[in-house]
């Protein structure tokens, strides 16, 4: 079932918080995973694995490097769901 971009952002923020401790309110569309949220590459893969399960999508490894900001991830997941 497709989610709205807001629902995806909310769900993603929960995953980021669970895996890294970053506060959900800091997970905003314009934030960079590495530069702003200080998320390392293994933690990023943990977020990807959890996001795939939560949103029932597949995020190929070669796509992950393009997900620089939270907004990139939300847009990719929304596109993959539709």
């Amino acid at each position, binding site marked *: 079932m497709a989610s709205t971009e807001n629902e995806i952002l909310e769900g993603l923020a929960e995953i980021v918080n*669970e*895996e*890294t*401790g970053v506060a959900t309110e800091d997970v905003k569309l314009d934030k960079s995973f590495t530069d702003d949220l200080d998320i390392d590459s*293994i933690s990023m*893969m*943990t977020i990807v*694995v959890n996001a*795939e*399960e939560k949103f029932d999508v597949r995020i190929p490894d070669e796509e992950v490097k393009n997900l620089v900001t939270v907004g990139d991830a939300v847009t990719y997941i929304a596109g993959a769901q539709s």
Partner: protein
Amino acid sequence: MTAPRPRVAVTGLGTVNPLGGDIATTWENALKGTSTAHTLDNDWKERYGLAVDFACEVTIDPFDVLARPEAKKLDPSGQFALIAAREAWSDAGTPEVPGERLGVVIGTGIGGVWTILNQWDVVRERGARRVNPFTVPMLMANSSSAHIEIELGAKAGAHTPVSACASGAEAVAQGFDMIRSGRADVVVVGGTESCVHPLPLAGFANIRALSTRTGDPEHASRPYDTDRDGFVLGEGAAVLVLESEEHAAARGASVYAYVAGRGMASDAHHISAPSTEGQARAVREALEDAGLEAADVKHVNAHGTSTPLGDIGELNAVSQALGGVTDQLVVTSTKSMTGHLLGGAGALESVFSVLAAHHRIAPPTINIENLDPETPMRIAQNAPAELPSGDLAVLNNAFGFGGHDVAVMFTSA
């Protein structure tokens, strides 16, 4: 005899084990003679046909102590080790030491048992894509020493002895050697294990190492009792901060006790059966390394796992190593209370040895109803035993499957 080599100060202690989530609680419950073995609150016996459905489990939830994302990146064995290391480091007064002079040695028998087995369940049930990306750094045996090394900024070397149930004591011995050889001024040492899981329980049961007293688990761990029938599985970690005497003195650190000597031998005998001969060589080496006489040793925290052959064999080895000079000794096996922490055992029992030397009291061996008449030494039977004033030495033994014999000699401060 050659002149004794320098001793090393013990300046900090920390633990998570079935008796408590910190040193103060652990020591208080140890002196009270608390049994921690209990029937496990799960369906493993019915579901898997497990013959032994009891163990000693830690009393704290690491997720209550560690930040959640931090705890999620650690196997339970790593969680226990990190909590114990933080307590020990803080207890030592967070020593100021350059990273290049700070080392870490944390032993484990197996490593991330839960992570390996849980993630294998994930592969089978949900597919390979769902495996936690942290799986490898969580399951590797050196995970605990690596996390502690990173947290403390230790750059002199981080090591992980793996010698089954001798691992924790071997870590103490290796840390001691690191300081004496000049590689470090401060070394954080210890051991950890977390494998109260159906697979290790089944494996240990099938090699006939575990007690099968399922109807009465709290009295199952009974070293030196005539009805002992095997060990009780435990879990947890213990960590000690070791420091060169000069370094500890220069910063005015309080010293619990000293590590004065260590012995390490291998049996070249059998993969699971112990050898009294190898054990005796380890104890003798520890005594000579410390430059002590047999009569100086007033207390032994024994390996004493509550197995029919092992308990008495070990005491005979000690007697042989001390040339029969054992009248001054009181022996205890704290495994009667904590169960067997495997890779954590030698570290936790080093902590008990240090506390015994510091407080001048030996914790009890509980559950002795009928003392085995073959017992060749005085046991702190069901009650703590006072230790004499003046200089004294305390011996801690730890032996592992494969024939690893480690003896560490502590002396009073």
